């Protein structure tokens, strides 16, 4: 079938429009981060920077700069929190997923797992706040890691379960026949086979933890545990006169997930589809 000229025109216009709508806010964020403060405060705006100003990025990676110190601390906390929570969630999720997939654990229980993350966090936050407060565990990366791992766990279990479901069961049976225990089979046979799924689950879990704001806002109060989202909210709420600084922090915080998303798009999209649609 050949498209008419009008149809082609409409198609390419729509594609162009979509590209603009998708990219414009991001491009503008990047431009802001490298424009001089003067360009950013002229009316109407100076869209293209008169000169490229990379000094903000320089400051942000400089420990001796106030903003840099805050940013780097938050970056470290975010990496630790998201990484730690992902690791724990995976370690706990894999056996659970195996129980759901191969040991006939009731799917109703899995739905209960999933329901816990669909509930608004405000239903959990106050008792947690009081308990952690009582334990003197507020404002600690470990505390956030524990809370986040509970937040990541149901989805990770779900994803791993649907991936273990499609592994050939005979391979595990062969291992059992050869005398292997469940733990040995998991470690030596199932995990290597599920490696792509584990990678996808890790990535998605990491991104979710990287994005989390609410618990971090409430459970952390200073540089020792604040994560990037909280730090960014602080930056933008403070009396910053140079919006380019906020933009550059935003760009840096977006880079890791954006790179992961672009490089592992197929993984991520299929993981999302599995997580949101498949039963």
């Amino acid at each position, binding site marked *: 079938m050949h498209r008419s000229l009008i149809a082609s025109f409409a198609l390419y216009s729509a594609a162009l429009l979509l590209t603009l709508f998708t990219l414009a806010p991001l491009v503008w964020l990047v431009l802001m981060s490298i424009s001089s403060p003067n360009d950013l405060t002229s009316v109407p705006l100076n869209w293209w920077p008169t000169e490229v100003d990379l000094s903000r990025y320089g400051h942000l990676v400089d420990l001796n700069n106030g903003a840099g110190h805050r940013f780097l601390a938050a970056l470290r906390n975010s990496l630790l929190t998201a990484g730690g929570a992902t690791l724990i969630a995976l370690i706990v999720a894999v056996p659970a997923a195996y129980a759901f997939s191969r040991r006939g654990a009731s799917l109703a229980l899995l739905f209960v797992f999933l329901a816990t993350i669909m509930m608004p966090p405000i239903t959990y936050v106050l008792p947690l706040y009081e308990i952690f407060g009582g334990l003197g565990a507020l404002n600690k990366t470990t505390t956030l890691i524990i809370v986040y791992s509970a937040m990541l766990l149901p989805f990770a279990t779900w994803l791993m379960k649907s991936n273990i479901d499609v592994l*050939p069961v*005979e*391979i595990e*049976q*062969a*291992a*059992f*026949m*050869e*005398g*292997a*225990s469940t733990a*040995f089979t998991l470690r*030596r*046979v199932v995990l*290597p*086979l599920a490696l792509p799924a584990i990678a996808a689950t890790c990535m998605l879990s990491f991104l979710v933890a990287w994005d989390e704001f609410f618990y971090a806002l409430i459970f952390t109060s200073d540089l020792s545990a604040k994560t990037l989202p909280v730090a960014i909210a602080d930056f933008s709420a403070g009396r910053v006169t140079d919006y380019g600084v906020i933009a550059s922090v935003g760009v840096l915080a977006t880079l890791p997930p954006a790179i992961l998303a672009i490089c592992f798009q197929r993984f991520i999209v299929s993981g999302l589809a599995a997580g949101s649609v498949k039963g």
Partner: protein
Amino acid sequence: MTNNLQKKERTAVSSNPILAVENLSKSYGDLRILKDVSVAIEAGDFLVLVGPSGCGKSTLLGCIGGLTEITSGNIQIDGQDVTHTDPAKRDIAMVFQSYALFPNMSVGDNIGFGLEVRKVPKTERDEKVNQVAELLKIEPLLDRAPAQLSGGQRQRVAMGRALVRDPKLFLFDEPLSNLDAKLRVTMRTEIKRLHQRLNASIIYVTHDQIEAMTLATKIVVMKDGVIQQVGSPREIYDTPANIFVADFMGSPAMNILDADVTMDGLMARVEIAREDGQEPLILYDTNPGEGITSRPAGPLKVGLRPEALTDLGSRSVNADQQFDCLLDVVEPAGSDTFAVIRLGGTEVTARMHGDVDVNSGDTVPICFDLTKISYFDPKSGERL
């Protein structure tokens, strides 16, 4: 070759079967897959479980291996009740239809997996793996990944993994069904040779009756989760327990015809109707069994193997019972020539010599040999 791969002494007194399955039933919900199955095998037996796809063969093997919970009944291995024992502790090895090799391990590691699980030291493990590889002629493949192997090679690796541990019992689940026809025949011979050499106890599942006939020392025919007959290949072939077994075992299948059977002195007179208007065939069975002699005359189903209908060749046939028959279709198959004849309201196959010169449409004399005729109840299909 260390002693674990050498021929085991066959126990003269077989009081203790190596495996005894008693009254085993298996249901998934309301669906009854296996119904009251009992089988036993002696040490050194090569038992072939044969039946159409979906009749529950793999399920039974899974129950014996401990991979599937059974619903009722019990299983003993070497005199010990293992009904509720881990597969790991049953001392059984299994070769899966899909081979189920570990894709992330080399061939050597696949074969040595069971030894690794048992924490056998690396040097001893390597030694045993090498022995098995030598036995199966796969030494050059030990470092390859399963994905790099051909179907036949994978099959050998799967067998190697089972052999290396020297278990009490081997389970084979349609191990040849994924191979092409030629390789299947080669591997069949090789498995038979292996069995003779190691004198292993084997339960072998297949839906291919030729495999069953060629390999088995004992055949179990199953249908819809019910055992139809247990016996030696000869018994199964010559005296099938019912029409299903008669039809399923043997290729081409046994001819099953409607006949009127009456006693004529000590002989049974078998009258088979022919096509429109032709005189019926009157055949005599000189040595009918008790089931016939004591039965009132009447319509029955009779079974005649294709080789019981043949041309006048070198075979010692009873030329008395010879009738001219119209050959509907002639199918030369090399060593034999098969001909389709219309008899008893159905199509029957005659097995003639490969070198007879006949064509479709010819009318030729056919000799009927009733020494191995089977009689079946027309309603139940059971052997009389």
